[in-house]
């Protein structure tokens, strides 16, 4: 098991994870789940960042920390927004939020 092979494997994996995240975002209707899929995408990217840092040094891993913190902030804001909209619509089904259209 040489490093290059492992790295490729990891990259592929992260790509797959990213794709799964995308798929989830596209097919799910529940706001929270969609949001979680986005988080999944971010983490997929983290994986590849870590992988690259094996090739290029420590920077990648540092970036990951930034990402994680940003993701946390996003989570906070996102959940707050979902909460806010729930107050009006009594649901988190994205299909329901169609007051703004056309």
């Amino acid at each position, binding site marked *: 098991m040489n490093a290059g092979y492992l790295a490729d494997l990891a990259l592929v994996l992260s790509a797959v994870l990213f794709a799964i995240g995308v798929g989830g975002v*596209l097919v799910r209707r529940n706001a929270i789940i969609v949001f979680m899929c986005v988080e999944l995408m971010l983490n997929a990217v983290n994986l590849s960042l870590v992988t690259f840092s094996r090739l290029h040094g420590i920077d990648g891993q540092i970036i990951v920390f930034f990402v994680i913190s940003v993701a946390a902030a996003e989570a906070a804001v996102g959940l707050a927004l979902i909460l806010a909209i729930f107050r009006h619509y009594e649901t988190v089904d994205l299909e329901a939020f*169609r007051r703004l259209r056309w």
Partner: protein
Amino acid sequence: MNEAFQPILPGLILGLPLLGAVLNGIGAFAWRDSKTIPSLVGPLTVLAAFAIGVANLLAMRAVMPHEPALVPLWTWMRSGELDISVMLMFDQLSLLMTLVVTGVGGIIHVYSVGYMRDDPGYSRYFAYLNLFIFFMLILVLSANYPLMFVGWEGVGLCSYLLIGFWYENREYSDAGKKAFIVNRIGDFGFLVAMFLLFSTFGTLDMPAIFREAPERLLADGALVTAITLFLFLGCVGKSAQIPLYVWLPDAMAGPTPVSALIHAATMVTAGVYLVARSGVLFALAPVSQAVVASVGAATALLAATIALQQFDIKKVLAYSTISQLGYMFVAVGIGAYTAGIFHLMTHAFFKALLFLGAGAVIHAVHDAWAATGAHGDPNDMRNHGGLRRLMPVTGTTMWIGTLAIAGVIPFAGFFSKDEIIWQAGVRGYAVLWALALVVALLTAGYMTRLMVMTFHGENRSGEGAGSHLHEVGAVMWMPLAILAALSVVGGWVQIPDALPLPHVDLLHSWLEPVFEPALLVAAGVAGQHGEASHTAPLGGGEALWAALSTTLAVIVILLVYRGLAARRYRPAAEAAEPTGFRAVLYHKWYVDELYDRLVVRPLLALWRGCWRIVDDRIIDGTVNGLAGVARLAGWTGSQLQSGRVATYLLVFMIGALIILGSLAF
């Protein structure tokens, strides 16, 4: 003869009528009700112009110049090599025309004073009439074609205004419009001719053109033929020849003096004048000459036949005018310019006389009916009859006119018409010659019919009208008398020595310097119509045929008189529609109807189509269509904007995939 001729007060000849027009025009607004001012201004300005004309005539006789005297006034338009100035040209021809216009015009102005006495538009009427004289003078005195065109259309304008003078009558204003538009068709020809002339000669001044024409233009060439034919198209319009004559009969809607002045004596002869004036050009184009002559002959015949079956006294005279104009075109067409001008002059006299006489009759009947309160068409001869006793002066003078136009010796018409016929004969135009003879007899026929229906037999003007019918006032019959005199002696200015009469040669020698170049050219072009023989197509000399024609005319007159005097006409009201061939003639060979069906209606349909279909449907349709497409596209796009986040993300993803996919390529 070599010292130059200096025109006397040339500006004033034009200025006076214009002044009169302006004054009367102001009067039409300022002093509507005053009759005196127009009655003075109107005739006097014209007569003054006539006086100056006479003075010039005498001066010119003294000099007898060979070159026209040019009077440049100011530069009109100059651009590039085009240089047109407002310039008058005085030569024997233009002076003669000036005299005819101002003389006959002046007489008619005087007559109008009586005729229009009670008309509310009195001042306006004289304004138009003076304006007409002004433009007519420009027409005859202009030294270049564009300026002539000014007069040409100016007289058209005045005729339009005067035909529709009683504008509150729809037919009348229609008639005016018709006259103008039909004339415009002719003017189109005039314009094109001018363009051709300019592109050929680089100038539009007549003297220059006539001087250079022989060198620049290939005799009998396509160019000169085109030029002359386009010019002639103008004449056809203005002088009411086939196919554009239809406006003249309608033009009788105007007050009768107008018909006399514009539609008999002067304006309508402008075409003849133009051809004679451009003699050099026509001489270079035998084809065009042939066309001119034959159109003239055909018109003469057609109009004469129609005149036979008209009941409206003015219509008869109108068609007679058309027919006589035909004669003149025959003359100028065959190159007998002097003959044409000669007939133009005499015709001015007797036709004006006839019209004014008719006017007197109409006036009388009109007044009588005004008294009795009867209604009807005072122009309809079926409502006249037996006026000889009631209106002796009118009757007699009109008989003189009739004899003159019928070509009975020694009246004016005889000499001029005889000359035309004879020239046609000796120049070998057998057909024209024959036609001319026939038309002469027809003329005698319809004129006699007119006289008989109007002045002889029982009066048909209705109960009590007779007592009210009476001779018109002096101001109206004096002009008749003068014109009658002219209709007698008018022909004596040119008596061929062939006749057993004292030989007089005033006109030929007078006009000779003007037409000399044309004749020389003609002689040059000659060949087929070279030296004239001295016998008519059927043999026999001038004297014989003159005698023959005049006796035939007399015979016709007598026959018609015998035939009709007996006939019991019935007033228009209860008269029956003519039938058979008479109907065809009565309906003028249905030409108007034909034009309406073949030209007017199709055009109108086409025009509506252009508007409704091309403009509204096609062009605007395209534009609005594009707008619609844009809106539709926008609407579709907005529908995609459904408010569903899922859709947004999906589109996002598709876009992303396409972009990433672009790597593959």
